[in-house]
C-alpha cells in the first residue's frame, strides 16, 4: 500500500476512535453523575493522539531505516570479482540494480512473472523501456537476480510495514479508549502533546540552520586548504577567473576586501538614506496622521515592501542610473565647462539610492508597529505635563521604543547586506576597491552567484570560494543579530 493510503487509514482509525471516545466520555458523565476531569473533547483528542502518534513514529522510522537495511544487504551480495572486471564502482552498480528492481514494481503482474533469475539483462531492460522506465546501458546479467531479490525485499518490507502501522494505530486507539475514566487527566496529556509538537517545530528550524552551516563548513574548509585564509581575508584583489587561467592560483586573486568594502559601502549608503526617511514616515504615521490617512498610507507602504527586488533593479538600471549620470554631466558642465559625467551609470550611489527606496517601507512599517505599541498612558502622561507632540515623541515615545527600533534597523541592515539583484543591476559586477561613491563596486552576494553559475568544475577553488564567501556573510549577519539582541536586552533591563 502506498504511504498516503496508510496515512489515510491511520487518520480514519483515529477519527473513529475519537468519535467513540467522545460518546463514551459523554455517557460516563451522564451516567455516574460525577464531574469528568476533562471535557469529552479532550478524551476524543486523547484517543486520537494514541492512535496516530505511535503509529506515525513507526511509519517514519520504517521509511527511513528500511531502504538502508535493504541496500546494505544487497550490496553485500554483489560479487566482487565480477565487479572488479567491469568498470563500475560499487555505488554505480548498486544504482543500476536499484533502478532495475524498482522498475520491476512498475511492470504489470503477468510481465513481472516472466522475469526470473535467469532472464538476461537485455530482455529486462527492453521490458522496462516499453513501460517508460529509463535504464542505464551498463547493466550486466549478474544484476538481474539481485534486482529480483531487491524487489521481493521491498515488497515484503512494505507489506509488513503497512500491517504493523495499521495494527499499532488500532491498538493505540484501543489502549486510549480503555483508559477513559472520569478522573483521567486527558486535558493535561493533550496539553503535553501540544507542547511536544511545538518543541519539535522549533527544533526543526534550529536543526536545519545548523545543517546549513555544516554543509557550508565542509566546502569552506576545503577551500581554505587550497587558498590560505590570510590571502582570502586580507587580499585586496579579486580576480578568481584570472587565476584559473594561470593553473595554480596566483597570490591575491581571491582577495575578499573589495567585496566586503563594497557590501558595507552600498549597505551604509542605503541605510543612511532609508533610516531617517523611514523613521520619520513611521513617526508621522504613528503619531500625527489621522486615522483615515493612516488607513490608506500604511497598507500602501506594506504593498511597496512586497515588490520583488528585481523590479527595483530595473528601476535603477533604466531610470536612476542614467538620470544620475546625466545630472552629473550637467553639473560638471555648468561648473567647469567640461561636459563629461563624473557619476557612472552603475555606481555605489545608484545602488545605495535604489536599495534605500526598497528599504524605506520596510523600516517605516516595522518602526510604526513598534511606536504604536508604546502604551498610550506614557504619551498622555507627557502631554498632560504640557509637553508638545514632538517633545513627547523625542523624550518619551522614542526612548521607550528604542530597543524595538534598534532591532528593526539591524534586521533591515541584514537585508541590505544580503541584497543581490539591485546590486547587480545598479552597481555592476566589477570588484573595485575605491572610496569614490560614483564608481561601480560589487558585493559578496553578487560574487557568490557569479562563482556558482559559471562553467567551472565543482571542486576548483573558483567554485569553492563561494562557500567561503557565504560562510563569511553568515558570520557577519550572525554577529549583527547577536549585537541586536544584546542591545535589546540591555535597554529592556533599564526600562522595565
Amino acid at each position, binding site marked *: 500500500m502506498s504511504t498516503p493510503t496508510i496515512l489515510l487509514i491511520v487518520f480514519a482509525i483515529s477519527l473513529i476512535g475519537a468519535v467513540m471516545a467522545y460518546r463514551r466520555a459523554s455517557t460516563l458523565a451522564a451516567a455516574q453523575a460525577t464531574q469528568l476531569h476533562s471535557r469529552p473533547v479532550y478524551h476524543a483528542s486523547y484517543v486520537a493522539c494514541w492512535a496516530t502518534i505511535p503509529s506515525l513514529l513507526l511509519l517514519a522510522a520504517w521509511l527511513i531505516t528500511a531502504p538502508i537495511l535493504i541496500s546494505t544487504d544487497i550490496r553485500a551480495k554483489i560479487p566482487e570479482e565480477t565487479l572488479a572486471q567491469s568498470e563500475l564502482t560499487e555505488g554505480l552498480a548498486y544504482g543500476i540494480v536499484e533502478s532495475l528492481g524498482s522498475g520491476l514494481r512498475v511492470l504489470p503482474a503477468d510481465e513481472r512473472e516472466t522475469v526470473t533469475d535467469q532472464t538476461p539483462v537485455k530482455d529486462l531492460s527492453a521490458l522496462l523501456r516499453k513501460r517508460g522506465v529509463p535504464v542505464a546501458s551498463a547493466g550486466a546479467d549478474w544484476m538481474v537476480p539481485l534486482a529480483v531479490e531487491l524487489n521481493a525485499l521491498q515488497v515484503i518490507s512494505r507489506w509488513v510495514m503497512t500491517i504493523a502501522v495499521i495494527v499499532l494505530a488500532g491498538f493505540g486507539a484501543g489502549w486510549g479508549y480503555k483508559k477513559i475514566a472520569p478522573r483521567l487527566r486527558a486535558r493535561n496529556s493533550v496539553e503535553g502533546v501540544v507542547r511536544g509538537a511545538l518543541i519539535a517545530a522549533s527544533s526543526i528550524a534550529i536543526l536545519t540552520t545548523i545543517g546549513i552551516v555544516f554543509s557550508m563548513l565542509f566546502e569552506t574548509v576545503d577551500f581554505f586548504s587550497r587558498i590560505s585564509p590570510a590571502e582570502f581575508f586580507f587580499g585586496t584583489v579579486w580576480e578568481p577567473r584570472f587565476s584559473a587561467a594561470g593553473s595554480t592560483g596566483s597570490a591575491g586573486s581571491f582577495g575578499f576586501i573589495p567585496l566586503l568594502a563594497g557590501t558595507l559601502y552600498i549597505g551604509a549608503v542605503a541605510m543612511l538614506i532609508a533610516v531617517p526617511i523611514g523613521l520619520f514616515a513611521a513617526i508621522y504615521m504613528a503619531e500625527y496622521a489621522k486615522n483615515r490617512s493612516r488607513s490608506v498610507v500604511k497598507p500602501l507602504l506594506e504593498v511597496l515592501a512586497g515588490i520583488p527586488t528585481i523590479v527595483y533593479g530595473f528601476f535603477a538600471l533604466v531610470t536612476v542610473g542614467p538620470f544620475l549620470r546625466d545630472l552629473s554631466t550637467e553639473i560638471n558642465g555648468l561648473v567647469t565647462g567640461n561636459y563629461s559625467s563624473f557619476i557612472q551609470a552603475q555606481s555605489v550611489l545608484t545602488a545605495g539610492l535604489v536599495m534605500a527606496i526598497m528599504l524605506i517601507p520596510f523600516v517605516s512599517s516595522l518602526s510604526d508597529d513598534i511606536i504604536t505599541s508604546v502604551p498610550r498612558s506614557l504619551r498622555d502622561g507627557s502631554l498632560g*505635563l504640557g509637553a508638545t507632540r514632538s517633545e513627547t515623541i523625542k*523624550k518619551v515615545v522614542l*526612548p521607550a521604543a528604542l530597543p524595538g527600533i534598534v532591532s528593526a534597523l539591524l534586521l533591515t541592515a541584514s537585508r541590505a547586506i544580503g541584497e543581490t539583484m539591485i546590486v547587480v543591476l545598479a552597481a555592476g559586477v566589477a570588484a573595485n576597491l575605491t572610496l569614490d561613491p560614483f564608481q561601480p563596486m560589487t558585493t559578496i552576494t553578487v560574487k557568490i552567484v557569479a562563482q556558482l553559475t559559471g562553467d567551472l568544475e565543482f571542486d576548483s577553488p573558483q567554485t569553492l570560494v563561494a562557500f567561503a564567501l557565504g560562510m563569511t556573510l553568515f558570520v557577519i549577519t550572525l554577529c549583527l543579530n547577536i549585537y541586536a539582541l544584546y542591545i535589546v536586552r540591555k535597554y529592556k533591563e533599564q526600562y522595565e
Partner: protein
Amino acid sequence: MENMQATFNKGRAVQAAIPIKMTSRDVTVHYGQKQALNGITLDIPERQVTALIGPSGCGKSTYLRCLNRMNDTIDSAKVGGEIRLDGEDVYDSAIDVVELRARVGMVFQKPNPFPKSIYDNVAYGPKIHGLARNKDELDEIVHISLRKAGLYKEVHDRLDEPGTGLSGGQQQRLCIARAIAVSPEVILMDEPCSALDPIATATVEELIDELRENFTIVIVTHSMQQAARVSQLTAMFHLGDLAEVGPTEKMFSNPDDKRTQDYITGRFG
C-alpha cells in the same frame, strides 16, 4: 428643563464666598455620534478639593479631561460649551494648549512613570518648560517636589534608578511629584488611588489634603469615604448629567437629589 435649570443654579450658588478658579458652562462632549456629556455647568473653587463621583461610565473622566483639553488627543471627541480658567476661555484659539496643560496638570488612574530614572521623571516637566536655569535649581525643584509628594524619604538615595522599579503606590506619588514639579495652578486626578492598597491610599489622601494649601484640586473617585475625607465640594454625575453639587458634608448627610441619595447609600452604581 426645570430640573436642569435648578442644577445650573446650584452649580454656581454654593460657594459664593470662595474665589472661583475654573468655570464650566453647559459643557458637552460627543465621541463621534455618541454624546457623553449633556451640558455640565460647574464652578471649581480655588485652593479646595472638588470631588467628582458617580456610577461608572457617567462621564467623570470625560469632564476632567475637558479641563486641560486632553480630549484633543482623541480624534473622535468633540467638545462644546465654555470652560474658563481665571476668566480666560481655555478653548479659545488664542490659548496655547501646551501652556494650559502646564497650568492645569493631570495625574492618571494608572501610575504611568516614564521609563527613565526617578530624577528624570520629576525633572521632565521643569526641563521642558525651562523652569530651572542650572543644575542646582533643577535639583532643588526635584527635591522639593518629591518632598511635597511624600516620596523623598523613600527614594532620596536612589534617584537614578528607574521610576518603573518603584511599587504601585510609590509610582503614583512619583506621578504626583512629576505633576507638582511644573508648579501648576490646578491638579486634576482621575481615580489616583484605584491601584493602591489602603496604606498607600492613606498617604496619597494626606498628600492631597496638604496640597490644597497651594493648588486647586479636582479628583475623580469611586470611594465615597475618600470623597468625604479629602474634598470640600462634591459633584455627583449621572449618565452625562450633573445630578447635584454641594458642600461635601451636606452631600453625604442630606443630599437633595434622589440619585445622589441612592448612589451614596449604595443602592445603584
